[in-house]
């Protein structure tokens, strides 16, 4: 029987140009003409012929050192990056959890920022209106919601961002080292909420440096090294080898 995969990577290769004549400016290009010409051809292969697939409702933890290509992998799933070779198939709506303050404007109020951010994440105005009270309630920012965002602390902004995200319709949630922010109590609350979303059958991709968090949340794990999948499978097995390596 063919399984119903929600995410499939087929022989995916992704590279970045090492040097970009245009964005570096013409002046430096002309000044280092000889080097520049050689650098032009160079590229950095970040993911090298990678294949794996994930079923709906699974939670995948992604491991690997800095620069291993974890964020690149997430970008490919989100559809903001495109593979140079191979195919990425994603069925369903992807929700990337944003880093601190992304998509917010400091001059707008908390409420205005909810509308702005939720629209960017794919919701229509009517849907947002239906849910805005729940969003504000979860964020515990009732007293500040009509103040401009520049008066918020970074903890408050994190709370607002997280609260918006969890009320967005989605099938796949991407968490890129995102839960390590905000105050401890809200971190706990967020983690609970993510577990709840997982129970509801959402697929979650979770990048974290903390093996314990991955173990708590994920059923599977993928370990990236030198552009290849070093290991992929059951979370306990992968974590065991990973921790040994460290």
């Amino acid at each position, binding site marked *: 029987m063919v399984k119903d995969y929600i995410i499939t990577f087929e022989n995916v290769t992704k590279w970045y140009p090492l040097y970009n004549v245009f964005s570096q400016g013409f002046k430096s290009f002309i000044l280092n003409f000889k080097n520049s010409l050689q650098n032009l051809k160079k590229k950095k292969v970040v993911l090298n012929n990678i294949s794996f697939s994930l079923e709906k409702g699974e939670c995948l933890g992604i491991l690997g050192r800095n620069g291993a290509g974890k964020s690149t992998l997430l970008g490919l799933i989100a559809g903001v990056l495109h593979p140079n070779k191979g195919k990425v198939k994603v069925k369903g709506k992807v929700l990337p959890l*944003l880093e601190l303050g992304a998509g917010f404007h400091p001059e707008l109020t908390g409420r205005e920022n909810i509308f702005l951010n939720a629209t960017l994440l794919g919701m229509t105005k009517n849907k947002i209106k239906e849910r805005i009270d729940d969003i504000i309630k979860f964020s515990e920012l009732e007293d500040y919601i009509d103040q401009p965002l520049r008066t918020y602390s970074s903890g408050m902004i994190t709370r607002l961002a997280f609260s918006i995200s969890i009320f967005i319709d989605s099938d796949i949630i991407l968490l890129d080292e995102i839960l390590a922010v905000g105050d401890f109590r809200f971190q706990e609350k967020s983690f609970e909420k993510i577990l709840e979303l997982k129970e509801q059958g959402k697929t979650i991709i979770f990048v974290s440096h903390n093996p314990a968090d991955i173990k708590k949340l994920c059923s599977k794990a993928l370990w990236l090294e030198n552009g290849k999948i070093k290991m992929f499978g059951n979370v306990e097995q992968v974590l065991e080898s990973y921790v040994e390596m460290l």
Partner: protein
Amino acid sequence: MKKNIINYYSLRYIWDLIVILTLKEIKVKYKRNLLGFFWSILNPLLLTLVFIIAFKGVLKIHINNYLLFLITGLFPWQWVTNVILSAPNILLSNASIIKKIKFPYEILPLALTLSEGIHFLLSLLVLIIIGLFYNLKPSINWLWGIPLLLLAQGILIYGLALIISSINLFFRDLERIVQVFMTMLFYLTPILYDIKHIPQKYIIFFALNPFFGIIYEWRTLLLKGYLDIKIYILYLLYSLLIFIVGLKIFRKLSKKFAEAL
């Protein structure tokens, strides 16, 4: 490509996104200070004053009612510069979301064009009020002429904003080039002078400037109360062409936005 976008996102959603991003631009522009609108009207008015001193007072140029003549060119031009000079940064300043979220990025330069367009519409009101003190005669033709010109100019500005915003990500020198180019274009567009001052044998080169016809039409419509339909259609088609080319370039480059930022 267009079809894809409509299928992928509902029209309702696209509309909501346009409205919210346009409102954001407007709010941000005027929120910082209550006098925001006042200041941005003051800018073309001060320019007007300077040009009156320079051209009427010093150079003794022969144009009747030079103040009215100037503001009917400078105000529409203000919409152009406000958008074009911000265009190189519109994607850069949204880097954090473009790197993470897939959404129709075309709407970012559109929101900029629309918000500045709304600002222009308000300044047009100020222009007309000032004009009334200087013998400006309102015309019934304004009712259809103004929307038509807004449309053509909006399409043209949006097309250029698409080109500039996307190419600037890969070729960061463009911002500087655009600044110089806009100053040159300002003097090559009949804003300070009239079309009839341009020597006949050069007029064809001046007319290649897509803003040539639009500024000319604004002035004839506001000062003389009519719109030259032939010229209008010609420059509308020109604007559409630039818009289509702009959309093609933007969409082609948009696949690489996230990694170029």
